[in-house]
């Protein structure tokens, strides 16, 4: 597990960007955090790191936004879907086991349908801290993702 503290949305976006640079086809990221935690901001960073152009807006309404880049980014938001049965009906498996990167917001609502190997990223506002402070907890499941966070922690600490 790797925990990092950020002090502004820009810094949160930056951690997303560093993460985005390390992603390869088939990767799955589950984002967890309350309304306003910064899930979409983090995803905007991931997209930047993946060299994806264009706005990354909230997919709450249409559930899935597909962004084409070096690798496709499938930005999924299950805010309005509370059971795994609901989310299966949108054909999520095709994305989860496809050729792109899947970033899934509100992943904690549908844990049972997620692949066993993935990166879970929880973003929270620590009690008592300034409004813009966030704690980002990155948890790998599987060897591939353990390597990934080792690399991420070394880059993030170098600060480049």
């Amino acid at each position: 597990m790797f925990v990092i503290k950020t002090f502004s949305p820009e810094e949160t976006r930056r951690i997303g960007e560093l993460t985005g640079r390390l992603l390869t086809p088939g990767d799955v990221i589950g984002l967890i955090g309350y309304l306003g935690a910064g899930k979409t901001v983090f995803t905007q960073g991931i997209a930047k790191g993946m060299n994806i152009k264009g706005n990354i807006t909230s997919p709450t309404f249409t559930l899935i936004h597909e962004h084409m880049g070096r690798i496709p980014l499938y930005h999924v938001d299950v805010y309005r879907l509370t059971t795994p049965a609901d989310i299966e009906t949108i054909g999520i498996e095709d994305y989860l086991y496809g050729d792109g990167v899947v970033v899934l917001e509100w992943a904690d609502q549908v844990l049972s349908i997620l692949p066993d190997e993935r990166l879970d990223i929880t973003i929270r506002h620590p009690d008592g801290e300034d409004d813009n402070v966030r704690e980002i907890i990155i948890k790998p499941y599987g060897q591939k993702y353990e390597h990934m966070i080792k690399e991420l922690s070394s880059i993030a600490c170098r600060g480049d």
Partner: protein
Amino acid sequence: MIIIGIETSCDETAVAVLEGTGDLSPSGLNLRSNIIASQVKLHRQFGGVVPEVASRKHVETIIPVIEKALDKAGVTLPDITAVSATYGPGLVGAVLVGLSAAKALAVALNIPFIGVNHIEAHMYANFLEHPHLRPPFVCLVVSGGHSDLIYLRDYGDYEVLGRTRDDAAGEAFDKVARALGLDYPGGPAIDEVSKGGNPSAVRFPRAFLEAGSYDFSFSGLKTSVVNYLAKAQSGGEEISVPDIAASFQEAVVDVLVDKTLKAASKKHTPIVALAGGVAANSRLRQELYLRAQERGVDVKYPSPILCTDNAAMVTCVGYFQLLLKGSSPLDLPASPSLSLE
């Protein structure tokens, strides 16, 4: 000419019948029927639209709603000149139901089929109620899924001046309503409760973004409301839901009105129009009207029934599009993230 229109992009199954003279002008349009079967009650238990539930409901409802719209209009299928339907943007499974029904009608009756953009349709709701309205004008389309500032240069000719960079305005209303413990849909709930609140109680941030930008951002505002609530809760402070709702609404309205009027001035147009579900918000209408009047700008908006999703607006685009560009191909696919340009 008699055009039937079908709209199933989200949670309303809607069919309408429009009669027109065949002139390229809204003056002779006569809306013969406008039937909307709402699924709001069905989705309220989930706090939002569940796509698969919506699609299934559309399948059950579409034929009876078509029959009712024809009946109310006093026409029968052989009277129909053309059939139009929304093909995007929207929930793909939901869009497909109306789109397939429209194509089936077109084939069975051997009449033209016209695929309609849902955002364009929202703007055209204004022509149905303002027969003297003519392009060019600036239109703000705000709903649960969209926040677009559009310059309508002419029928079928648009320039997107700005759009949201994160959350749609209506989405922010829904999410803040949920955080405040209010009902779904959040827009009407916040509008109502705000009437008893003080809009200056809390100064929430307004995201105007960089100078000259017509884009919107409502995610930071949402975060700010959530932070405010969390702080009040942990400090044991009592909160006033009407005050917070009114203050949040004020921040949204402030930015929407400011950018819409700036866009009108940039485009040198004396007319601005509102469209989409959030256009039914009473505070937005009032504030836009007041601030536009100071600048000598005329404001148009549809009545609430034509702001939220409906098929009358689809028939209206269908009418103009058929005259200007002719019919659409029958293999036109549903396009969930269709844009205007």
